[in-house]
């Protein structure tokens, strides 16, 4: 297209050098190219038709097929670098949708790694990593969300049988929303109020089998299913889950930090803030994801504004590229500036998280509260401003921005979910405020 080619000739810098500066070096860019080439070379990693033309069932089937093929080829990437190679590999294959193993990798496995004692780690980690089971993370309830203290699901210890009885006492206690809970997962980390010897010790994580490993039918005492179609993420079976006095062995409670002994004695965790680490890391990934989606929206709108001609500034001088209108520049360029700002912040938070994790091993937790507070605030401000920015980019493309061909509806639905999951934004801001007031 002559107009977009003219734009590229007008640029005053080397695009590859800028990309290296953005992603952290030539080696990173090289790896992106290798991953892209690999994905393009494997038809089983592609969509038979564009997903926007599929029914929900077709999308779920397509996502399940692709996630198996994707994880069959994990050796193609450095799977420990989820922040970099993992996210890129997944976005190329799975696009802007979740899949049956979304929470298995991002929540189920990290929780097993972070919250189990050595014996439990041996029992569950290799099974989860080898995909022998599919796990999710069930914390949010129908009537309760970010305020964990009021979760209603209970786990009551029975010393006679050395079991925990998991129960959903009311409809509002039903677990609701977890990705892949409805139809795919056969295990879940369930967060429940722990009762032992008649005393409630607050929310604790438990690993619970949901379905028969052969037939995949729900276990007796468990009601589980899909919560229905949503604004986005429709390749994912976000689910509901209700327990009817469902019994699990004592070792079902994850016991690295707090324990319940065979006679029911409760051992409290040494430092309650230790769980913050994974939260900060998950948020750095979220912030990078939001920055990437905002940049994608700005990329689409700016490229289209370069080739779309509409109206004349000087009468008779011919229609102009709409990117020449100051108002169009003002709609789009600040969004691109934000995308850069958010991306650099995501890398900075990830680096600080690495520093804190290293300090933690020497017992130094000074930086942890400040980073935890900051990451809550960043998650809130970035997800909100990214969603607004994506919508502004969509509107700047006129009618075509409303068509699924533009990808804007998909980008917005994928990104705006970040305003509520991982903590409702206003609650996140008030968490930051609590820290600021103390400071």
């Amino acid at each position, binding site marked *: 297209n002559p107009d977009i080619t003219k734009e590229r000739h007008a640029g005053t810098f080397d695009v590859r050098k800028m990309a290296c*500066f953005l992603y952290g070096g030539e080696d990173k860019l090289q790896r992106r190219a290798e991953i892209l080439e690999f994905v393009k070379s494997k038809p089983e990693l592609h969509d038979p038709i564009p997903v926007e033309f599929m029914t929900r069932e077709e999308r779920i089937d397509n996502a399940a097929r692709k996630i198996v093929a994707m994880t069959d080829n994990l050796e193609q990437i450095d799977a420990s670098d989820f922040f970099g190679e993992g996210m890129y590999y997944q976005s190329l294959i799975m696009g802007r949708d979740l899949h049956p193993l979304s929470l298995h990798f991002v929540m189920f496995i990290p929780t097993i790694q972070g919250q189990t004692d050595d014996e439990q780690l041996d029992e569950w980690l290799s099974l989860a990593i080898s995909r022998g089971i599919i796990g999710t993370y069930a914390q949010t309830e129908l009537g309760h969300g970010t305020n964990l203290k009021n979760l209603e699901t209970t786990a009551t210890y029975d010393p006679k049988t050395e079991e925990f009885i998991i129960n959903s006492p009311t409809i509002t206690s039903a677990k609701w929303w977890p990705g892949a809970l409805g139809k795919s997962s056969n295990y879940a980390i369930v967060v429940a109020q722990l009762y032992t010897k008649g005393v409630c010790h607050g929310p604790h994580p438990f690993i619970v089998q949901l379905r028969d490993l052969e037939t995949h039918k729900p276990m007796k005492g468990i009601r589980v299913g899909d919560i229905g179609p949503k604004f986005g993420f429709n390749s994912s079976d976000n689910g509901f889950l209700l327990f009817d006095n469902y019994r699990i062995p004592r070792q079902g409670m994850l016991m690295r930090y707090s324990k319940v002994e065979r006679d029911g004695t409760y051992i409290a965790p040494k430092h309650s803030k230790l769980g913050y680490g994974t939260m900060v890391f998950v948020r750095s990934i979220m912030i990078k994801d939001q920055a990437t989606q905002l940049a994608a929206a700005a990329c689409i709108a700016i490229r289209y504004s370069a080739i779309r001609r509409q109206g004349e500034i000087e009468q008779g001088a011919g229609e102009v590229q709409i990117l020449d209108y100051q108002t169009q520049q003002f709609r789009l360029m600040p969004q691109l500036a934000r995308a850069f700002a958010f991306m650099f912040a995501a890398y900075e938070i990830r680096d600080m998280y690495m520093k804190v994790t290293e300090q933690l091993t020497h017992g130094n937790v000074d930086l942890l509260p400040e980073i935890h507070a900051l990451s809550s605030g960043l998650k809130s401000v970035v997800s909100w401003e990214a969603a607004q920015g994506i919508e502004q980019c969509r509107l700047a493309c006129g009618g075509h921005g409303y068509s699924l*061909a533009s990808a804007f509806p998909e980008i917005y639905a994928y990104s705006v979910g970040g305003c509520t999951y991982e903590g409702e934004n206003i609650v996140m801001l*008030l968490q930051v405020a609590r820290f600021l007031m103390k400071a």
Partner: protein
Amino acid sequence: AKEVRSGNAKLAAICGYLAKPDLAHSKFAAWQTYSDANIVQDFEHVARRQIFRAYDVLMRHQRETSTEEAWNRASIELCKASRMHVRLYLVRTFLEKVATAADASLRSPLTDLTRLYAFDLITASQGEFLKGDFMSDSQADGIRDGIYRCLERLRPNAVSLVDSWDFDDAELHSVLGRRDGNVYPALLEWAQKSQLNKTEVLPTFEKYLGPMMKE
């Protein structure tokens, strides 16, 4: 805020600005000479002022009601404080990162982006910057002028800047945003995949529209 007010604040890097003395006025003279340090200083001033305003509002409510209800009654001011704290962090990190760009041809457009980002944020929350005459009307006008000049300077690099994000068409998944810009033929081709185009005549015609037109 409490520790700072009581004089024994142990603050790590991120919140250090809370303990700094207030500034009477912004040092903004012109958008071309508005330095990284002056930009950060002005955001620190506004964030600090909002945090202590929220603190004073909270303290006032705590004198009248329970701690929890006081927190609820101050929560809008508290959210504004958190947002300013986060925006300060975003501006500072952006400026610090761009300053590390060794290549001048990269640093120039990136600096324009940092200015556009900061000026846009200042203008969006202009009331906070004008409060107490911290910024004068003419300084605020100078900031706005800076936005328009940055847009002008960035215009030639707009497409190259988005290209720098290294989005392959497969990842972008957008007919409108295709790298080659050949959008209109591609839109027509994309439309052919619609399920409705599998047959020339839909069953709905025989069932409803045809009979209607024959009535």
